[in-house]
């Protein structure tokens, strides 16, 4: 079986600064996979390469067996990949509802759109309460929820989520993680980038460790968590 997402030997750089040095990873359908590592390791760059915001210097990105690097971002997004960036990239002068409807931009069927919207509101009741509020006036946690919800509106097969816990207080972080778990249980495949190593390894299926632009370790989250290097470097134990 071909994995849903496969990265083969990706080299990527910003101008002259190379960030990714031969990154390879794969994500199977239905998995919740974590990508962890220190600051500047290239975690976000990996996600940005998958969605097409950066085109790799060499290597291949395959989605359901099809090569997608060198495709424009909007086409990759329409193929069924959603990217929730760490900056969130919300439409701040628009209402919550308008943001969500734009999330389903590629879905022309109005009824399907409304059905997804109802499903999203069921998943995040908070957003329904605030549906007429401008996205820019919401709190950090609510914005993050909105960004994830907007990413869901296109009914993606795969979601790339970049540091959802960044800048959130612990109980809100738990809410965001719970939401991700619920999505996984409903059949969405997720590739998650996180700094919160301990918590992330507790609820993900598999994990990759990225250091200085290379994947140095991979395996089931439980095994990674028991690894001595990981415990020393990331959990301070």
């Amino acid at each position: 079986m071909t994995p849903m997402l496969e990265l083969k030997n990706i080299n990527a750089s910003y101008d002259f600064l190379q960030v990714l040095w031969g990154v390879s990873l794969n994500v199977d359908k239905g998995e919740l996979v974590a990508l962890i590592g220190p600051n500047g390791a290239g975690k976000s760059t990996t996600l940005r390469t998958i969605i097409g915001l950066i085109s790799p210097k060499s290597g291949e990105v395959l989605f359901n067996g099809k090569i997608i690097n060198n495709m424009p971002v909007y086409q990759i997004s329409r193929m069924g990949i959603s990217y929730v960036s760490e900056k969130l990239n919300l439409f701040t002068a628009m209402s919550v509802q308008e943001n969500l409807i734009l999330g389903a931009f590629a879905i022309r069927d109005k009824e399907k759109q409304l059905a997804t919207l109802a499903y999203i509101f069921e998943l995040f009741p908070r957003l329904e309460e605030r549906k007429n509020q401008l996205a820019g006036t919401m709190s950090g946690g609510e914005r993050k929820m909105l960004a994830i919800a907007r990413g869901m509106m296109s009914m993606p097969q795969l979601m790339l989520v970049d540091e959802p816990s960044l800048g959130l207080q612990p109980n809100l972080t738990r809410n965001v993680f719970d939401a991700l778990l619920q999505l996984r249980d409903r059949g969405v495949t997720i590739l998650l980038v996180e700094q919160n190593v301990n918590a992330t390894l507790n609820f993900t299926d598999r994990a990759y460790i990225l250091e200085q632009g290379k994947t140095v370790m991979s395996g089931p989250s439980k095994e990674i968590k028991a690894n001595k290097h990981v415990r020393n470097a990331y959990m301070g134990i």
Partner: protein
Amino acid sequence: MAKDSITRPATQESLMTRIKDNLPIIIVSVFSIILFAAVYIKGGTSQIFNVFITGGMWALLAVGLALVFGVMNIPHFAHGESFMVGAYVAYFTFNPIREYLQQNPSKFIGIIAPFGAILVAGLAGAVLGVIIERGIFAPLRHRTKEGWVMNAFLLTVGISFVLTNGANLVLGPNFRGVPRYWDVDAVEIAGAYMSVDRLIAFGVSMLTIGVLWFFLRRTRIGRAIRAVSQDETGAQLVGINLNFIQTLTFSLATAMAAISGASLLFLFQAYPTVGATPLYYAWYVVMMAGLGNVAGAIIGGFIVALLQTSTQLFVAVSWTTVIPTAVMILVLLLAPSGIFGSDVKGVQEQ
């Protein structure tokens, strides 16, 4: 809920801060009302109509500028040339029909033809917009990494030169105009005599702005245009084709300028540099209202027209450009981001 009880006692203060935040809008509204009253007392209804008719046209031009700046971050200095092209296209469409009508009068064609000429000019503008965007700005966008605003600005100035001198080369410097579009007497409205051409020019500008407003607020593609102006990356992530939206936006703006040039042909005539004056007024409007702010551009159009009309009434006709410019400088000194600020962030700031 606890949060409410903390903020509630501060209501009076928040009213004060609200007034403070909206101070430019309040001052401008008060001044506008006073000026309106003064214009009405001195000039009567005909001058009030004048304000609205001129204002409608500046608004139509300024909306195009605001759109192009908000969505594409281009300070568009070739907008006047779109006006010029619209005027020429309308002239060359309408004039043969006019000559034909002099030989064989027909009431029906006489009524329809000017609308046809304006429509053809709008379509020509839309096509011109697509050509300029695809042929000039798209390649620049793919190559530019830094300094996009400056590069784009210089490019628009270049386009303006090429189009103005191109028109001069091909068509010569002569003035081409029509005495009037509709061969009927002026109509009386509330004691003022208005030519039908002026009334319809106003109607055309309001209709175009109305259609645009509906398009931006209520349709899928219009929403995508606003999305691109607020967050380019976010727009791409939800599956919006940036290139398509940018071409469409530029095309719409060019079409609006061409429509405005066409419907004012009886007033401005068509000649190579006809676009300069409308361009400057449209820029006064967007600078005063706040760059990239579409709603502000509409209101700003009327404010500039009000300033012009009152200058003509109370000072002298020769001061018509001086006073609006002075006011614009004053506004920029006091409120650098314009009267209405801008809820649309330029793409560069993100």
